């Protein structure tokens, strides 16, 4: 037991002794040490800040994606290019509300869904009107899927749905443009040719800077059955997974369900397609990781250059301190102690450079995040980047410090003491 413990303990003492000597040496050569580490400082600073900028960009894109909803599945009718549906009219393969009946019971991974349809209509209230407002037909479950709060009045209920009432929800911008009161519930507006009673005001959609304006902010929502009755429209659906990771299961269940309700034969192609934002997200994530790795790697070359600087100065140090090495050997330093002393010195220099570099990188990152209109507000140094650049700096120290250290350890003490 004692023998097993002795070796690591010995190594620790050796390491402690080397760190002690190395720190003393670095302290004795302050100016030189600082100058030497500038390469490493620049290297670590640039690696961390480049990664920070890219991470910020990625975080921004991801948060924009997420504002669209990552666990949403868009189900859209799709006209197959082959098979017996090739020449069908759109009325035959569009979605009918009946095709979705019983979906929630049959698709356990789907927590909710809403049928959607949309039109562009002119809205009037008294003498004021809005051209080109978007009018959506929605199910009440839309409220839970889209997560947009109703600030005034009430959301749609099953009553609105089942009775096919001509009621509507409007966005604040509709209200403002029509000069309606803040509490405008009960007022009637004309959508297209028909009159609708306002039951509530729903928040405007979350704007994502990355994708720009996604359609007009003048929106009117009416119950889906009402829209179906009025327009006989083109329909799509948004389903929502129970958990973010379940999109694959949900898609499979939905496909199975829809193929059945749409009476597709086993050999038929799907007459609908499904799109999951999560999948785009995954692809984007992969691409972003790749770009980060490549950019980080290219910038990381500067760390190598810094490492060469360290090696250079360590070589100078070894030849300058030849007599000292000889003396240390004469008073009983083993070759391993000398090797470790110089190696630790190189590594400590690199780690010191890494520390300062990380600080400079943090400063650069703060500055980057402040660049206006660059969408980099979320730039930050991820912990793994710190770990990697520190680890890399230490590795550079070991790698480039090894040659001078071995050179020092191999010196013959007699020759070294005779060295001028």
């Amino acid at each position, binding site marked *: 037991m004692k023998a097993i413990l002795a070796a690591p303990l010995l190594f620790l*003492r050796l390491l402690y*002794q080397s760190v*002690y*000597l190395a720190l*003393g040496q670095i302290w*004795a050569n302050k100016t030189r040490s600082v100058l030497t580490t500038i390469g490493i400082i620049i290297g670590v600073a640039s690696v961390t800040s480049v990664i920070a900028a890219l991470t910020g960009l990625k975080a921004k894109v991801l948060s924009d994606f997420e504002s669209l909803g990552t666990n949403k599945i868009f189900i859209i009718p799709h006209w197959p290019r082959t098979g017996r549906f090739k020449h069908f009219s759109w009325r035959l393969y569009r979605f009918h509300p009946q095709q979705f009946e019983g979906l929630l019971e049959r698709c356990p991974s789907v927590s909710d869904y809403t049928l959607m349809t949309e039109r562009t209509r002119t809205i009037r209230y008294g003498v004021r009107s809005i051209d080109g407002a978007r009018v959506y037909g929605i199910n009440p479950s839309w409220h839970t899927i889209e997560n947009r709060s109703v600030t005034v009045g009430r959301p749609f209920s099953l009553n609105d749905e089942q009775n096919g009432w001509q009621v509507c929800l409007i966005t604040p911008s509709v209200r403002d443009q029509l000069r309606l009161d803040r509490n405008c519930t009960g007022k009637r507006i004309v959508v297209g040719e028909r009159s609708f009673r306002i039951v509530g005001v729903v928040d405007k959609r979350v704007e994502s800077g990355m994708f720009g304006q996604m359609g007009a902010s003048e929106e009117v929502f009416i119950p889906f059955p009402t829209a179906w009755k009025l327009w006989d429209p083109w329909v799509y659906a948004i389903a929502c997974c129970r958990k973010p990771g379940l999109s694959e299961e949900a898609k499979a269940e939905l496909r199975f369900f829809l193929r059945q309700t749409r009476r597709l034969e086993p050999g038929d192609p799907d007459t609908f397609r499904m799109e999951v934002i999560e999948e785009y997200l995954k692809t984007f994530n992969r691409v972003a990781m790749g770009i980060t790795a490549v950019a980080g790697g290219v910038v990381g070359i500067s760390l190598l250059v810094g490492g060469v600087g360290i090696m250079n100065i360590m070589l100078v140090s070894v030849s300058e301190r030849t*007599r*000292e090495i*000889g*003396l*240390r*050997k*004469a*008073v*009983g*330093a*083993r*070759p*391993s*102690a000398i090797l470790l002393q110089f190696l630790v010195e190189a590594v400590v220099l690199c780690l010191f450079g890494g520390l300062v570099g990380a600080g400079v990188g943090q400063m650069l990152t703060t500055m980057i995040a402040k660049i206006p209109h660059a969408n980099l507000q979320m730039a930050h140094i991820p912990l793994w980047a710190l770990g990697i650049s520190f680890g890399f700096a230490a590795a550079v120290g070991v790698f480039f410090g090894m040659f001078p250290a071995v050179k020092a350890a191999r010196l013959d*003490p*007699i020759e070294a*003491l005779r060295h001028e």
Partner: protein
Amino acid sequence: MSTKPDRIIIRLEKVTRIYKVGVESIHALDGIDLQLRRNEYVAVMGPSGSGKSTLMNILGCLDRCTGGTYFLDGRDTTRLGAGGLARIRNTQIGFVFQSFELLGRSSALKNVEMPLIYSREGWWSRRKRAKKMLERVGLGDRIKHRPNQLSGGEKQRVAIARAMVCGPSILLADEPTGNLDSKTSEGILALFDQLHSEGQTIILVTHEESVARHASRIIRMTDGRIFSDMSFEQDRANRASLNGRFGEMSK
């Protein structure tokens, strides 16, 4: 460790050291037999190239002999590896050099502490022992000074303290007064005398008869061989008679 004064501490048996320079081989040491007892004070003398430095390097375990065996304190050093030799240098041998070899950037205390770092002493006991040793060589008030703030004699005292701090069996001094004026040299030699009187075994390499006078035994070397090995009194008588003969011849 036995403190019996007449115990043999160094035994060289037919030690040779051959340097290969191209095809030529130079016999720096050519069959040295030597025995040293504890508490002896030996001066090794000889012209340059006589092999006395090589002998010192081998005695100090800095160099290995190419033939023969070297027992230090009953241990065959020729069988030891680099690590074992380093340990012996650390614990059994103290070196004093002609040019002091102090670390210029470190204080006297740090210089004296250095060998203790390699014998894995703790920080506190290292300091304590180094301080005590510096007091012993008469530099108790100069522990914070750097070598460039010390005189030559003081530097050599620091070097002696460094050599002695691990409590070595033998103290090897290579021309310890070579860089000092005669008055300072006397001080250093007095320190050696004091250490010797306290039981230290000392081996001294020198050119100068005045330095060798302090030793109790004088070994003279030429061409890698021991040419005379006798007590100081015998040596002086011998020299006198030789000088007398040369004197007659020159007449």
